[in-house]
């Protein structure tokens, strides 16, 4: 678990969430050295803060899979959903 700790902000939401869950389980198991526990806790707090921030600033990302001229597929940024709730006629 302590191997290759990436910067929290480089993790995807899912990766960060999975790591957090793992940290909590390890903390809950109570098998860790105190130093390790404190280190994990610090990491956990960091993950938690990052995850919370992401929930707050989440913006939808939409892309469209299009065929390129050579026939291969490529992802092209698409429009996110309209944020207004008015009806268009």
């Amino acid at each position, binding site marked *: 678990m302590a191997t290759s700790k990436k910067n929290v902000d480089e993790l995807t939401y899912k990766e960060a969430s999975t790591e957090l869950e793992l940290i909590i389980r390890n903390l809950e198991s109570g098998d860790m050295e*105190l130093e390790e526990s404190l280190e994990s806790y610090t990491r956990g707090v960091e993950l938690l803060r990052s995850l919370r921030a992401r*929930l707050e600033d989440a913006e939808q990302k939409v892309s469209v899979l299009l065929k390129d001229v050579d026939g291969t597929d490529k992802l092209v940024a698409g429009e996110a959903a*309209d944020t207004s709730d008015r009806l268009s006629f």
Partner: protein
Amino acid sequence: MPGWNLTGTAPRAQGASEGDEALSVSQAVEMAASALDALPLLTVIGEVTGFRGPNARSGHCYFQIKDDACAVDCIIWRGSYAKRSFELRDGMQVQFTGNFNLYKATGRMSFVAKSFTLAGEGLLRQQVAALAEKLRLEGLCDDARKLRIPVFCTRVAVVTSLSGAVIDDVKRTLRRRNPLVELICVGAKVQGDGAPAELIEGLARAAAIDPAPDCILLVRGGGSFEDLMTFNDEALARAVASCPVPVVTGIGHEPDTSICDMVSDRRCSTPTAAAESVAPAMSDLVDVLDARERRMVTALTGTVRAASSDVAALRERADRAFGGYMSRLAMALDAAAARPCLRDPAWMVDRRLADLEQSADRLGGAAARGGVERGGA
């Protein structure tokens, strides 16, 4: 030939000269009956109406078949009805094979059907049901072979028409529910000629995206039974079943169920419901994080508390052990201190003094005795 008929009876067919002799009803009906009998075996498509099941007493069925303009009585004899492959119901489009028949006693014409099969949508439905059964027997609908869909899919491909309202519904639903879900739209025709092939290709392209999406939404808005027939295509159903990425379907509205729905890894009733099913709502994620924070704090508090009680126990043991050692030392010291040499340093001198005094006494005694003896000799 009289110009009128006073008796009220039909004129007898005797005035052969004018060629317009009247027929008896029997003769006329007989002629019509033979004309009808001369018709070949007919196959007629019509809508069933007024069907009330086989007659309780005779077992024959009497009802009508109709189209927009016409209707005709229809009879199915008990023996023919017994060979049916499905139950007739009002409103069904059915293809009847049989002959016209005139019931001479009432002059009523009926179509006597010897056999019947479903036609139109009914036929399609029957074929769809047969395909569904076939795929079910192959095990394509078994839960055991369905792929697990992550609770929180963060990367989702949507295979549908990019021009309809459905793609917007999906985007809007997920933006509101969970904007962390990244959407990748893969366009394909969803109805008409070539739609199944485009959808099959769309699924393959979506599954090939790198990194692979967590799941694929295969969605389409509501439509008529025939509009939705695309999703009853066998090749498309097999592509859904064999897709390496889990497929979530949302096709049509609540009661619509297609073959694709049956073989997909998760079936939702509408495109919106399908979109909602792939990721938890933001508020739920916040709750999850809150719960995790509490767990983490509790766990660490527990660890620290356990460590500090360990420390306290160790300290107590150390105190006890050290205290014992100290008291042993003290006892040794006390014992040493209790020795007479230390308790009363004068004792050594006193003891020697006593020895000396004793020696002196003995010396004194000896000298006295020696003097007496020498003096006496």
